[in-house]
Protein backbone atom coordinates (compact mmCIF):
# COMPACT_ATOMS: atom_id res chain seq x y z
CA UNK A 1 0.00 0.00 0.00
CA UNK A 2 1.40 3.49 -0.84
CA UNK A 3 2.17 5.66 2.18
CA UNK A 4 -0.41 8.31 3.12
CA UNK A 5 2.38 10.77 3.83
CA UNK A 6 5.89 10.91 2.52
CA UNK A 7 8.55 13.50 3.24
CA UNK A 8 11.70 13.50 1.12
CA UNK A 9 14.90 15.25 2.08
CA UNK A 10 13.31 18.18 3.86
CA UNK A 11 15.70 20.98 4.65
CA UNK A 12 14.69 24.24 6.24
CA UNK A 13 16.63 27.31 7.21
CA UNK A 14 15.86 30.30 9.36
CA UNK A 15 17.66 33.48 8.38
CA UNK A 16 16.78 35.56 11.40
CA UNK A 17 18.94 36.54 13.27
CA UNK A 18 21.57 34.48 11.42
CA UNK A 19 21.33 31.71 8.86
CA UNK A 20 20.62 28.53 10.71
CA UNK A 21 19.45 25.12 9.53
CA UNK A 22 16.48 23.89 11.62
CA UNK A 23 15.67 20.75 9.63
CA UNK A 24 18.36 18.59 8.10
CA UNK A 25 17.49 16.09 5.39
CA UNK A 26 14.32 14.76 7.01
CA UNK A 27 12.94 11.74 5.16
CA UNK A 28 10.18 9.45 6.39
CA UNK A 29 6.91 7.83 5.40
CA UNK A 30 3.68 7.21 7.26
CA UNK A 31 1.18 4.50 6.43
CA UNK A 32 -2.56 5.03 6.56
CA UNK A 33 -3.93 4.20 9.98
CA UNK A 34 -0.58 4.80 11.69
CA UNK A 35 -0.53 6.52 15.06
CA UNK A 36 2.87 8.17 15.10
CA UNK A 37 4.66 10.22 17.74
CA UNK A 38 7.47 12.74 17.15
CA UNK A 39 9.67 13.21 20.19
CA UNK A 40 12.82 15.13 20.98
CA UNK A 41 14.24 17.85 23.15
CA UNK A 42 12.73 21.29 23.13
CA UNK A 43 14.05 23.34 20.23
CA UNK A 44 15.06 20.40 18.08
CA UNK A 45 12.63 21.37 15.28
CA UNK A 46 9.52 19.26 15.93
CA UNK A 47 7.03 22.12 15.62
CA UNK A 48 8.83 23.45 12.55
CA UNK A 49 8.56 20.03 10.90
CA UNK A 50 4.87 19.83 11.76
CA UNK A 51 4.19 23.25 10.16
CA UNK A 52 5.90 22.00 6.99
CA UNK A 53 3.70 18.93 7.01
CA UNK A 54 0.66 21.10 7.67
CA UNK A 55 1.28 22.78 4.25
CA UNK A 56 1.12 26.22 5.90
CA UNK A 57 4.88 26.71 5.77
CA UNK A 58 5.99 26.42 2.16
CA UNK A 59 9.52 27.78 2.53
CA UNK A 60 11.54 24.57 2.49
CA UNK A 61 13.63 22.36 0.23
CA UNK A 62 12.57 18.80 -0.44
CA UNK A 63 9.25 17.29 -1.25
CA UNK A 64 6.05 16.45 0.62
CA UNK A 65 3.29 14.21 -0.67
CA UNK A 66 0.07 13.39 1.16
CA UNK A 67 -2.97 11.33 0.27
CA UNK A 68 -1.49 10.69 -3.17
CA UNK A 69 -1.09 14.41 -3.89
CA UNK A 70 2.22 16.16 -4.32
CA UNK A 71 1.99 19.30 -2.19
CA UNK A 72 5.33 20.94 -2.83
CA UNK A 73 5.05 23.96 -5.12
CA UNK A 74 1.25 24.20 -5.01
CA UNK A 75 -0.67 27.49 -4.86
CA UNK A 76 -1.90 28.83 -1.53
CA UNK A 77 -5.52 28.36 -2.57
CA UNK A 78 -4.93 24.73 -3.53
CA UNK A 79 -3.21 24.10 -0.19
CA UNK A 80 -6.04 25.80 1.71
CA UNK A 81 -8.57 23.49 0.08
CA UNK A 82 -6.35 20.48 0.76
CA UNK A 83 -5.98 21.40 4.45
CA UNK A 84 -9.71 21.88 4.77
CA UNK A 85 -10.48 18.46 3.37
CA UNK A 86 -7.58 16.24 4.40
CA UNK A 87 -5.88 17.72 7.43
CA UNK A 88 -6.92 18.37 11.01
CA UNK A 89 -4.70 20.29 13.43
CA UNK A 90 -4.38 20.74 17.11
CA UNK A 91 -1.96 23.59 17.72
CA UNK A 92 0.45 23.78 20.57
CA UNK A 93 -1.27 26.84 21.99
CA UNK A 94 -4.91 25.74 21.52
CA UNK A 95 -6.27 28.40 19.18
CA UNK A 96 -10.00 29.05 18.94
CA UNK A 97 -11.93 32.05 17.60
CA UNK A 98 -12.76 33.77 20.91
CA UNK A 99 -16.05 35.39 19.84
CA UNK A 100 -17.60 32.19 18.58
CA UNK A 101 -19.14 29.45 20.69
CA UNK A 102 -17.35 26.13 21.07
CA UNK A 103 -19.88 24.59 18.70
CA UNK A 104 -19.39 27.28 16.04
CA UNK A 105 -15.62 26.86 16.29
CA UNK A 106 -15.97 23.18 15.55
CA UNK A 107 -18.48 23.81 12.76
CA UNK A 108 -16.52 26.42 10.78
CA UNK A 109 -14.15 24.08 8.85
CA UNK A 110 -17.16 21.85 8.17
CA UNK A 111 -19.17 24.73 6.77
CA UNK A 112 -16.20 25.75 4.67
CA UNK A 113 -15.92 22.24 3.22
CA UNK A 114 -19.59 22.41 2.28
CA UNK A 115 -19.97 18.66 2.03
CA UNK A 116 -22.96 18.56 4.36
CA UNK A 117 -25.81 21.03 4.91
CA UNK A 118 -25.48 23.34 7.91
CA UNK A 119 -27.90 21.35 10.05
CA UNK A 120 -25.91 18.18 9.54
CA UNK A 121 -22.59 19.93 10.15
CA UNK A 122 -24.04 21.06 13.48
CA UNK A 123 -25.05 17.52 14.40
CA UNK A 124 -21.66 16.21 13.46
CA UNK A 125 -19.97 18.97 15.46
CA UNK A 126 -22.08 18.09 18.52
CA UNK A 127 -21.07 14.47 18.07
CA UNK A 128 -17.36 15.40 18.03
CA UNK A 129 -17.82 17.55 21.13
CA UNK A 130 -19.56 14.68 22.86
CA UNK A 131 -16.69 12.40 21.92
CA UNK A 132 -14.23 14.77 23.57
CA UNK A 133 -16.47 15.37 26.57
CA UNK A 134 -17.24 19.01 25.78
CA UNK A 135 -20.90 18.72 24.73
CA UNK A 136 -22.04 20.61 27.84
CA UNK A 137 -19.99 23.63 26.82
CA UNK A 138 -21.13 23.70 23.18
CA UNK A 139 -22.93 27.06 23.45
CA UNK A 140 -20.30 28.78 25.55
CA UNK A 141 -18.12 31.41 23.89
CA UNK A 142 -14.61 30.05 23.39
CA UNK A 143 -13.16 32.97 25.35
CA UNK A 144 -15.00 31.74 28.46
CA UNK A 145 -13.37 28.29 28.38
CA UNK A 146 -10.28 27.22 30.30
CA UNK A 147 -7.05 26.36 28.47
CA UNK A 148 -7.65 22.63 28.71
CA UNK A 149 -11.24 22.98 27.57
CA UNK A 150 -10.18 25.06 24.61
CA UNK A 151 -7.64 22.45 23.63
CA UNK A 152 -10.31 19.76 23.68
CA UNK A 153 -12.61 21.90 21.51
CA UNK A 154 -9.66 22.35 19.13
CA UNK A 155 -9.35 18.55 18.95
CA UNK A 156 -13.06 18.28 18.10
CA UNK A 157 -12.54 20.91 15.39
CA UNK A 158 -9.64 18.91 13.95
CA UNK A 159 -11.97 15.93 13.61
CA UNK A 160 -14.96 17.66 12.00
CA UNK A 161 -14.17 16.89 8.35
CA UNK A 162 -13.00 13.32 9.05
CA UNK A 163 -9.54 14.28 7.80
CA UNK A 164 -7.11 11.80 6.30
CA UNK A 165 -4.38 12.95 8.69
CA UNK A 166 -4.69 14.55 12.12
CA UNK A 167 -1.67 16.49 13.35
CA UNK A 168 -1.18 17.63 16.89
CA UNK A 169 1.58 19.75 18.44
CA UNK A 170 1.51 18.50 22.02
CA UNK A 171 -2.25 17.93 21.82
CA UNK A 172 -2.42 16.79 25.44
CA UNK A 173 0.06 19.35 26.74
CA UNK A 174 -2.55 21.38 28.61
CA UNK A 175 -4.71 18.50 29.79
CA UNK A 176 -4.82 16.78 33.15
CA UNK A 177 -4.14 13.07 33.39
CA UNK A 178 -7.77 11.94 32.90
CA UNK A 179 -8.46 14.19 29.89
CA UNK A 180 -5.07 13.42 28.41
CA UNK A 181 -5.83 9.71 28.62
CA UNK A 182 -9.24 10.34 27.03
CA UNK A 183 -7.70 12.19 24.08
CA UNK A 184 -5.13 9.44 23.71
CA UNK A 185 -7.79 6.74 23.53
CA UNK A 186 -9.78 8.78 21.00
CA UNK A 187 -6.70 9.00 18.80
CA UNK A 188 -6.08 5.28 19.20
CA UNK A 189 -9.65 4.63 18.13
CA UNK A 190 -9.47 6.91 15.08
CA UNK A 191 -6.24 5.23 13.99
CA UNK A 192 -7.86 1.85 14.27
CA UNK A 193 -10.63 3.11 11.94
CA UNK A 194 -8.04 4.18 9.36
CA UNK A 195 -7.24 7.84 10.09
CA UNK A 196 -3.59 8.73 10.46
CA UNK A 197 -2.36 10.54 13.57
CA UNK A 198 0.92 12.43 13.85
CA UNK A 199 1.51 13.92 17.28
CA UNK A 200 4.45 15.81 18.70
CA UNK A 201 4.72 14.93 22.37
CA UNK A 202 6.85 15.31 25.46
CA UNK A 203 4.94 12.67 27.34
CA UNK A 204 6.88 9.34 27.37
CA UNK A 205 3.70 7.37 28.25
CA UNK A 206 1.84 8.93 25.30
CA UNK A 207 4.73 8.09 22.95
CA UNK A 208 4.99 4.58 24.29
CA UNK A 209 1.32 3.92 23.47
CA UNK A 210 1.62 4.88 19.78
CA UNK A 211 2.48 2.58 16.86
CA UNK A 212 5.65 4.35 15.83
CA UNK A 213 8.03 6.92 17.23
CA UNK A 214 10.37 9.27 15.40
CA UNK A 215 13.01 10.81 17.60
CA UNK A 216 14.61 14.08 16.58
CA UNK A 217 17.66 15.95 17.69
CA UNK A 218 19.14 19.14 16.28
CA UNK A 219 16.88 19.05 13.23
CA UNK A 220 17.69 15.47 12.32
CA UNK A 221 15.87 12.18 12.76
CA UNK A 222 18.15 10.20 15.04
CA UNK A 223 15.90 7.21 15.61
CA UNK A 224 12.72 5.71 14.25
CA UNK A 225 11.19 2.64 15.83
CA UNK A 226 7.92 0.69 16.13
CA UNK A 227 6.39 0.22 19.54
CA UNK A 228 5.55 -3.35 20.46
CA UNK A 229 1.85 -4.05 19.94
CA UNK A 230 0.04 -3.99 23.25
Amino acid at each position, binding site marked *: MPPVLSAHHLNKYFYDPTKFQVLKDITFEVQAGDFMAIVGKSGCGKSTLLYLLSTMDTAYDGEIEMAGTKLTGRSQDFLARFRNEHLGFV*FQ*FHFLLPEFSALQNVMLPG*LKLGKYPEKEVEERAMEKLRLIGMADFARKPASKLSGGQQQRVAIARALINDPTIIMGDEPTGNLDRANGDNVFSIFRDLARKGQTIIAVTHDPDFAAGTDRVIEMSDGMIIASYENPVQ
Partner: protein
Amino acid sequence: MDLHIASQIAQTHLTAKKRQTLVAMLGVTFGIAMFITMISFMQGVNQFLEDSALDASPHIRLYNEVNTQRPSLIEQLNPGRFNVVYHQKPKDEQSRIKNGLTIAERIEREPGVLGVSPQVATQVFYNNGPIQLSGTISGVDIDRENRLYKLYTRLKSGSLNALKTNPDGLIMGTVLARKLNVRVGDKVTVTTPKGTTRVLRVVGTFGFGVGTVDNTRSYGNLSTVQEMLQRDPSYITDIHIKMIDPLQALPFGQKLRATYGYYTEDWATANTAILAGEKIRNMLTYVVSITLLVVAGFGIYNIMNMTVINKIKDIAILKATGFDARDIIAIFLLQAVFIGFTGGLMGLGIGFGISYLLSITPFDAGDFLSIKTFPVIFAAKYYVMGLLFGVITTILAGYFPARKAAQVDPVAILRG
Protein backbone atom coordinates in the same frame (compact mmCIF):
# COMPACT_ATOMS: atom_id res chain seq x y z
CA MET B 1 -15.57 31.19 -1.51
CA ASP B 2 -18.66 30.88 0.58
CA LEU B 3 -20.36 34.22 1.23
CA HIS B 4 -22.67 32.73 3.79
CA ILE B 5 -19.89 31.73 6.22
CA ALA B 6 -17.93 34.87 5.40
CA SER B 7 -20.91 37.05 6.28
CA GLN B 8 -21.53 35.06 9.45
CA ILE B 9 -17.96 35.65 10.57
CA ALA B 10 -18.11 39.30 9.49
CA GLN B 11 -21.28 39.74 11.50
CA THR B 12 -19.71 38.23 14.60
CA HIS B 13 -16.70 40.52 14.26
CA LEU B 14 -18.95 43.56 13.88
CA THR B 15 -21.17 42.78 16.84
CA ALA B 16 -18.17 41.94 19.01
CA LYS B 17 -17.08 45.59 18.83
CA LYS B 18 -20.31 47.51 18.57
CA ARG B 19 -18.90 50.85 19.60
CA GLN B 20 -16.16 50.80 16.97
CA THR B 21 -18.63 49.72 14.32
CA LEU B 22 -20.95 52.55 15.27
CA VAL B 23 -18.19 55.15 15.15
CA ALA B 24 -17.16 53.99 11.68
CA MET B 25 -20.79 54.05 10.60
CA LEU B 26 -21.37 57.54 11.96
CA GLY B 27 -18.50 58.82 9.82
CA VAL B 28 -20.27 57.62 6.70
CA THR B 29 -23.63 58.78 8.05
CA PHE B 30 -22.32 62.29 8.54
CA GLY B 31 -20.76 62.43 5.08
CA ILE B 32 -23.85 61.18 3.30
CA ALA B 33 -26.25 63.31 5.34
CA MET B 34 -24.17 66.35 4.47
CA PHE B 35 -24.11 65.37 0.83
CA ILE B 36 -27.88 64.93 0.68
CA THR B 37 -28.55 68.18 2.51
CA MET B 38 -26.11 70.16 0.43
CA ILE B 39 -27.13 68.81 -2.92
CA SER B 40 -30.87 69.11 -2.17
CA PHE B 41 -30.45 72.67 -0.98
CA MET B 42 -27.97 73.82 -3.61
CA GLN B 43 -29.98 72.32 -6.42
CA GLY B 44 -33.05 73.95 -4.89
CA VAL B 45 -31.31 77.31 -4.95
CA ASN B 46 -30.15 76.71 -8.51
CA GLN B 47 -33.62 75.76 -9.61
CA PHE B 48 -35.17 78.70 -7.83
CA LEU B 49 -32.77 81.24 -9.28
CA GLU B 50 -33.04 79.73 -12.72
CA ASP B 51 -36.81 79.68 -12.53
CA SER B 52 -37.17 83.23 -11.34
CA ALA B 53 -34.68 84.48 -13.91
CA LEU B 54 -36.33 82.46 -16.65
CA ASP B 55 -39.77 83.52 -15.54
CA ALA B 56 -38.85 87.16 -15.76
CA SER B 57 -36.93 87.04 -19.00
CA PRO B 58 -37.98 85.90 -22.45
CA HIS B 59 -36.48 82.74 -23.86
CA ILE B 60 -35.60 84.76 -26.92
CA ARG B 61 -35.64 88.50 -27.42
CA LEU B 62 -35.64 89.79 -30.98
CA TYR B 63 -34.55 93.42 -31.27
CA ASN B 64 -32.83 95.92 -33.48
CA GLU B 65 -29.55 97.25 -32.26
CA VAL B 66 -29.07 100.90 -33.01
CA ASN B 67 -25.73 102.61 -33.08
CA THR B 68 -23.82 99.85 -34.79
CA GLN B 69 -20.34 100.66 -35.97
CA ARG B 70 -20.18 101.92 -39.48
CA PRO B 71 -17.19 103.12 -41.49
CA SER B 72 -17.10 106.78 -42.41
CA LEU B 73 -17.94 107.80 -45.91
CA ILE B 74 -14.37 108.78 -46.71
CA GLU B 75 -13.15 105.46 -45.39
CA GLN B 76 -15.43 103.74 -47.86
CA LEU B 77 -14.34 105.84 -50.81
CA ASN B 78 -10.69 106.04 -49.97
CA PRO B 79 -9.84 102.90 -48.06
CA GLY B 80 -6.42 102.30 -46.54
CA ARG B 81 -5.38 105.99 -46.67
CA PHE B 82 -4.78 108.39 -43.85
CA ASN B 83 -8.37 109.37 -43.17
CA VAL B 84 -9.34 111.21 -40.04
CA VAL B 85 -12.95 111.90 -39.18
CA TYR B 86 -13.67 113.64 -35.90
CA HIS B 87 -16.91 113.32 -34.04
CA GLN B 88 -18.69 111.01 -36.40
CA LYS B 89 -22.37 110.67 -35.49
CA PRO B 90 -24.11 107.34 -35.73
CA LYS B 91 -26.58 107.02 -38.55
CA ASP B 92 -30.04 108.07 -37.47
CA GLU B 93 -31.54 104.68 -37.35
CA GLN B 94 -34.66 103.69 -35.53
CA SER B 95 -34.73 100.81 -33.16
CA ARG B 96 -37.91 99.75 -34.89
CA ILE B 97 -38.39 96.23 -36.10
CA LYS B 98 -39.89 96.60 -39.53
CA ASN B 99 -43.18 94.74 -39.85
CA GLY B 100 -42.80 93.77 -36.21
CA LEU B 101 -46.42 92.78 -35.76
CA THR B 102 -46.41 90.59 -38.85
CA ILE B 103 -43.15 88.96 -37.80
CA ALA B 104 -44.61 88.33 -34.36
CA GLU B 105 -47.63 86.64 -35.85
CA ARG B 106 -45.48 84.50 -38.07
CA ILE B 107 -43.23 83.42 -35.23
CA GLU B 108 -46.26 82.58 -33.17
CA ARG B 109 -47.32 80.01 -35.75
CA GLU B 110 -43.94 78.20 -35.65
CA PRO B 111 -43.96 74.84 -33.86
CA GLY B 112 -42.49 74.77 -30.36
CA VAL B 113 -43.38 78.41 -29.64
CA LEU B 114 -45.43 78.98 -26.52
CA GLY B 115 -46.16 82.62 -26.99
CA VAL B 116 -44.96 85.84 -28.59
CA SER B 117 -45.32 89.36 -27.26
CA PRO B 118 -44.39 92.27 -29.54
CA GLN B 119 -43.70 95.41 -27.55
CA VAL B 120 -42.22 98.86 -27.43
CA ALA B 121 -39.62 99.32 -24.75
CA THR B 122 -37.95 102.58 -23.89
CA GLN B 123 -35.99 104.32 -21.18
CA VAL B 124 -38.04 106.80 -19.18
CA PHE B 125 -37.97 108.98 -16.11
CA TYR B 126 -40.64 108.47 -13.51
CA ASN B 127 -41.52 111.59 -11.55
CA ASN B 128 -43.62 111.85 -8.49
CA GLY B 129 -43.20 115.25 -6.92
CA PRO B 130 -39.52 115.65 -6.10
CA ILE B 131 -38.76 112.00 -6.67
CA GLN B 132 -37.25 111.27 -10.03
CA LEU B 133 -36.21 107.76 -10.99
CA SER B 134 -35.00 106.31 -14.25
CA GLY B 135 -36.44 103.08 -15.49
CA THR B 136 -38.04 101.46 -18.48
CA ILE B 137 -41.55 101.23 -19.75
CA SER B 138 -42.78 98.40 -21.94
CA GLY B 139 -45.79 99.02 -24.09
CA VAL B 140 -47.45 95.64 -24.39
CA ASP B 141 -50.58 93.79 -25.29
CA ILE B 142 -51.19 92.78 -21.70
CA ASP B 143 -52.94 89.50 -22.62
CA ARG B 144 -50.02 88.32 -24.68
CA GLU B 145 -47.52 89.45 -22.08
CA ASN B 146 -49.55 87.65 -19.44
CA ARG B 147 -49.41 84.48 -21.49
CA LEU B 148 -45.60 84.68 -21.55
CA TYR B 149 -44.88 85.64 -17.96
CA LYS B 150 -47.99 84.56 -16.05
CA LEU B 151 -48.29 88.15 -14.89
CA TYR B 152 -51.44 87.45 -12.91
CA THR B 153 -49.37 85.33 -10.50
CA ARG B 154 -46.86 88.17 -10.17
CA LEU B 155 -49.43 90.81 -9.42
CA LYS B 156 -49.02 92.28 -5.93
CA SER B 157 -51.90 94.73 -6.15
CA GLY B 158 -54.43 96.03 -8.68
CA SER B 159 -55.48 94.04 -11.73
CA LEU B 160 -54.38 93.32 -15.28
CA ASN B 161 -57.76 94.12 -16.74
CA ALA B 162 -57.58 97.67 -15.44
CA LEU B 163 -54.82 98.28 -17.97
CA LYS B 164 -57.12 97.27 -20.81
CA THR B 165 -59.91 99.62 -19.71
CA ASN B 166 -57.63 102.53 -18.87
CA PRO B 167 -55.43 103.68 -21.79
CA ASP B 168 -53.34 105.72 -19.35
CA GLY B 169 -52.88 102.82 -16.96
CA LEU B 170 -49.54 101.63 -15.69
CA ILE B 171 -48.57 98.42 -13.96
CA MET B 172 -45.41 99.08 -12.04
CA GLY B 173 -42.65 96.97 -10.45
CA THR B 174 -43.20 96.80 -6.68
CA VAL B 175 -39.82 98.10 -5.71
CA LEU B 176 -40.06 100.96 -8.17
CA ALA B 177 -43.53 101.82 -6.86
CA ARG B 178 -42.28 101.82 -3.31
CA LYS B 179 -39.35 104.06 -4.16
CA LEU B 180 -41.68 106.45 -5.97
CA ASN B 181 -44.04 106.26 -3.04
CA VAL B 182 -47.03 105.47 -5.22
CA ARG B 183 -49.86 103.00 -4.83
CA VAL B 184 -52.68 101.77 -7.03
CA GLY B 185 -54.72 104.84 -8.04
CA ASP B 186 -51.81 107.29 -7.73
CA LYS B 187 -50.48 109.26 -10.68
CA VAL B 188 -46.93 109.31 -12.01
CA THR B 189 -45.37 111.57 -14.58
CA VAL B 190 -43.42 109.70 -17.19
CA THR B 191 -40.86 111.45 -19.38
CA THR B 192 -39.50 109.77 -22.50
CA PRO B 193 -36.09 110.37 -24.10
CA LYS B 194 -37.98 112.27 -26.82
CA GLY B 195 -38.89 114.81 -24.19
CA THR B 196 -42.57 114.03 -24.20
CA THR B 197 -44.28 113.83 -20.86
CA ARG B 198 -47.42 112.02 -19.91
CA VAL B 199 -49.22 111.47 -16.66
CA LEU B 200 -50.10 107.84 -16.13
CA ARG B 201 -52.11 106.22 -13.37
CA VAL B 202 -50.81 103.19 -11.48
CA VAL B 203 -53.42 100.43 -11.81
CA GLY B 204 -51.34 97.57 -10.47
CA THR B 205 -47.98 96.47 -9.15
CA PHE B 206 -46.06 93.32 -9.85
CA GLY B 207 -43.02 91.53 -8.44
CA PHE B 208 -40.93 88.88 -10.20
CA GLY B 209 -38.47 88.54 -7.36
CA VAL B 210 -35.76 89.74 -9.72
CA GLY B 211 -34.27 93.06 -8.70
CA THR B 212 -33.42 94.36 -12.15
CA VAL B 213 -37.05 93.95 -13.20
CA ASP B 214 -39.00 94.94 -10.08
CA ASN B 215 -36.74 97.94 -9.61
CA THR B 216 -37.12 99.48 -13.03
CA ARG B 217 -39.92 98.13 -15.20
CA SER B 218 -43.51 99.19 -15.76
CA TYR B 219 -46.05 97.94 -18.23
CA GLY B 220 -48.21 100.31 -20.21
CA ASN B 221 -50.53 99.88 -23.17
CA LEU B 222 -48.77 99.35 -26.47
CA SER B 223 -50.61 102.22 -28.17
CA THR B 224 -50.00 104.62 -25.28
CA VAL B 225 -46.25 104.06 -25.33
CA GLN B 226 -46.21 104.37 -29.12
CA GLU B 227 -47.98 107.71 -28.76
CA MET B 228 -45.57 108.87 -26.09
CA LEU B 229 -42.72 108.12 -28.47
CA GLN B 230 -44.64 109.82 -31.26
CA ARG B 231 -44.62 106.71 -33.35
CA ASP B 232 -47.16 105.00 -35.56
CA PRO B 233 -49.18 101.97 -34.38
CA SER B 234 -46.86 99.55 -36.21
CA TYR B 235 -43.82 100.67 -34.23
CA ILE B 236 -42.31 97.66 -32.39
CA THR B 237 -38.85 97.53 -30.79
CA ASP B 238 -38.79 94.11 -29.14
CA ILE B 239 -40.38 90.77 -29.74
CA HIS B 240 -40.33 88.50 -26.67
CA ILE B 241 -40.68 84.79 -27.33
CA LYS B 242 -41.26 81.89 -24.96
CA MET B 243 -40.64 78.35 -26.10
CA ILE B 244 -42.34 75.21 -24.84
CA ASP B 245 -38.87 73.74 -24.20
CA PRO B 246 -36.41 76.43 -23.01
CA LEU B 247 -33.50 74.46 -24.46
CA GLN B 248 -34.94 74.93 -27.94
CA ALA B 249 -34.42 78.66 -27.52
CA LEU B 250 -30.79 78.58 -28.64
CA PRO B 251 -31.20 76.95 -32.07
CA PHE B 252 -34.53 78.72 -32.64
CA GLY B 253 -32.97 82.08 -31.86
CA GLN B 254 -30.25 81.47 -34.42
CA LYS B 255 -32.85 80.53 -36.97
CA LEU B 256 -34.80 83.72 -36.31
CA ARG B 257 -31.69 85.82 -36.65
CA ALA B 258 -30.94 84.23 -39.99
CA THR B 259 -34.51 84.62 -41.22
CA TYR B 260 -35.26 88.20 -40.16
CA GLY B 261 -31.82 89.73 -39.85
CA TYR B 262 -32.41 91.18 -36.39
CA TYR B 263 -30.45 90.60 -33.24
CA THR B 264 -31.57 87.86 -30.90
CA GLU B 265 -30.62 87.16 -27.34
CA ASP B 266 -31.48 83.87 -25.66
CA TRP B 267 -32.02 83.30 -21.95
CA ALA B 268 -28.76 81.38 -21.48
CA THR B 269 -26.72 84.32 -22.79
CA ALA B 270 -28.79 86.81 -20.86
CA ASN B 271 -28.34 84.84 -17.63
CA THR B 272 -24.71 83.74 -17.85
CA ALA B 273 -24.09 84.95 -14.31
CA ILE B 274 -26.83 82.72 -12.93
CA LEU B 275 -25.62 79.72 -14.89
CA ALA B 276 -22.04 80.33 -13.73
CA GLY B 277 -23.29 80.57 -10.13
CA GLU B 278 -24.99 77.26 -10.66
CA LYS B 279 -21.76 75.62 -11.76
CA ILE B 280 -19.94 77.01 -8.75
CA ARG B 281 -22.62 75.76 -6.33
CA ASN B 282 -22.55 72.31 -7.93
CA MET B 283 -18.80 72.21 -7.61
CA LEU B 284 -18.99 73.32 -3.98
CA THR B 285 -21.52 70.59 -3.21
CA TYR B 286 -19.35 67.87 -4.67
CA VAL B 287 -16.10 69.14 -3.19
CA VAL B 288 -17.53 69.38 0.34
CA SER B 289 -19.34 66.03 0.11
CA ILE B 290 -16.38 64.19 -1.35
CA THR B 291 -14.09 65.67 1.29
CA LEU B 292 -16.42 64.44 4.02
CA LEU B 293 -16.64 61.02 2.41
CA VAL B 294 -12.87 60.79 2.07
CA VAL B 295 -12.56 61.62 5.76
CA ALA B 296 -15.16 58.95 6.53
CA GLY B 297 -13.25 56.59 4.25
CA PHE B 298 -10.04 57.13 6.19
CA GLY B 299 -11.97 56.48 9.39
CA ILE B 300 -13.15 53.17 8.03
CA TYR B 301 -9.68 52.37 6.72
CA ASN B 302 -8.23 52.95 10.19
CA ILE B 303 -10.87 50.95 11.97
CA MET B 304 -10.64 48.07 9.50
CA ASN B 305 -6.85 48.08 9.85
CA MET B 306 -7.22 47.88 13.61
CA THR B 307 -9.73 45.09 13.24
CA VAL B 308 -7.34 43.13 11.05
CA ILE B 309 -4.55 43.56 13.59
CA ASN B 310 -6.83 42.57 16.47
CA LYS B 311 -8.13 39.57 14.57
CA ILE B 312 -4.80 38.38 13.25
CA LYS B 313 -5.02 35.17 15.30
CA ASP B 314 -8.50 34.48 13.94
CA ILE B 315 -7.20 35.01 10.43
CA ALA B 316 -4.34 32.56 11.05
CA ILE B 317 -6.72 29.91 12.42
CA LEU B 318 -9.16 30.36 9.55
CA LYS B 319 -6.35 29.97 7.05
CA ALA B 320 -4.96 26.97 8.91
CA THR B 321 -8.33 25.25 8.80
CA GLY B 322 -8.70 25.78 5.09
CA PHE B 323 -10.14 29.25 4.41
CA ASP B 324 -8.41 30.78 1.39
CA ALA B 325 -7.39 34.34 0.59
CA ARG B 326 -10.73 35.17 -1.07
CA ASP B 327 -12.66 34.04 2.01
CA ILE B 328 -10.57 36.29 4.22
CA ILE B 329 -11.00 39.27 1.86
CA ALA B 330 -14.75 38.62 1.79
CA ILE B 331 -14.93 38.55 5.59
CA PHE B 332 -13.34 41.96 6.00
CA LEU B 333 -14.76 43.57 2.90
CA LEU B 334 -18.25 42.56 4.01
CA GLN B 335 -17.67 44.34 7.29
CA ALA B 336 -16.68 47.49 5.43
CA VAL B 337 -19.64 47.21 3.08
CA PHE B 338 -22.01 46.69 5.99
CA ILE B 339 -20.60 49.77 7.70
CA GLY B 340 -20.88 51.75 4.47
CA PHE B 341 -24.36 50.57 3.62
CA THR B 342 -25.89 50.96 7.08
CA GLY B 343 -24.07 54.23 7.70
CA GLY B 344 -25.16 55.37 4.26
CA LEU B 345 -28.80 54.49 4.87
CA MET B 346 -28.76 56.35 8.16
CA GLY B 347 -27.13 59.25 6.33
CA LEU B 348 -29.92 59.26 3.76
CA GLY B 349 -32.49 59.35 6.56
CA ILE B 350 -30.77 62.15 8.41
CA GLY B 351 -30.08 64.00 5.16
CA PHE B 352 -33.75 63.78 4.28
CA GLY B 353 -34.69 65.00 7.75
CA ILE B 354 -32.40 68.02 7.56
CA SER B 355 -33.54 68.82 4.01
CA TYR B 356 -37.14 68.59 5.12
CA LEU B 357 -36.55 70.88 8.11
CA LEU B 358 -34.80 73.31 5.80
CA SER B 359 -37.68 73.21 3.36
CA ILE B 360 -40.14 74.27 6.06
CA THR B 361 -37.88 76.83 7.70
CA PRO B 362 -39.31 80.30 7.11
CA PHE B 363 -36.95 82.40 5.05
CA ASP B 364 -37.56 86.11 4.91
CA ALA B 365 -36.22 87.24 1.57
CA GLY B 366 -37.98 90.59 1.55
CA ASP B 367 -40.34 91.40 -1.34
CA PHE B 368 -37.50 90.74 -3.72
CA LEU B 369 -37.78 86.98 -3.74
CA SER B 370 -41.04 85.19 -4.05
CA ILE B 371 -40.26 82.46 -1.49
CA LYS B 372 -41.37 81.91 2.07
CA THR B 373 -39.05 78.99 2.94
CA PHE B 374 -35.64 77.78 1.78
CA PRO B 375 -35.78 76.21 -1.66
CA VAL B 376 -35.04 72.49 -1.44
CA ILE B 377 -35.38 69.82 -4.10
CA PHE B 378 -36.26 66.26 -3.13
CA ALA B 379 -35.10 63.94 -5.90
CA ALA B 380 -34.58 60.18 -5.68
CA LYS B 381 -31.45 60.36 -7.79
CA TYR B 382 -29.58 62.31 -5.07
CA TYR B 383 -30.35 59.54 -2.60
CA VAL B 384 -29.24 56.82 -5.00
CA MET B 385 -26.08 58.79 -5.66
CA GLY B 386 -25.45 59.31 -1.94
CA LEU B 387 -25.77 55.64 -1.13
CA LEU B 388 -23.59 54.73 -4.09
CA PHE B 389 -20.89 57.17 -2.97
CA GLY B 390 -21.03 55.77 0.56
CA VAL B 391 -20.73 52.16 -0.50
CA ILE B 392 -17.97 52.85 -3.03
CA THR B 393 -15.98 54.81 -0.45
CA THR B 394 -16.22 52.03 2.10
CA ILE B 395 -15.35 49.32 -0.40
CA LEU B 396 -12.22 51.26 -1.32
CA ALA B 397 -11.41 51.91 2.33
CA GLY B 398 -12.06 48.29 3.31
CA TYR B 399 -10.28 46.63 0.43
CA PHE B 400 -6.72 47.43 1.47
CA PRO B 401 -7.01 46.19 5.07
CA ALA B 402 -8.86 43.12 3.75
CA ARG B 403 -6.07 42.37 1.31
CA LYS B 404 -3.55 42.78 4.11
CA ALA B 405 -5.56 40.28 6.14
CA ALA B 406 -5.51 37.82 3.24
CA GLN B 407 -1.73 38.03 3.13
CA VAL B 408 -1.23 37.11 6.79
CA ASP B 409 1.21 34.23 7.16
CA PRO B 410 -0.52 31.83 9.55
CA VAL B 411 2.69 30.08 10.61
CA ALA B 412 4.23 33.29 11.88
CA ILE B 413 1.18 33.81 14.11
CA LEU B 414 0.55 30.24 15.23
CA ARG B 415 4.16 29.55 16.15
CA GLY B 416 3.41 31.74 19.14
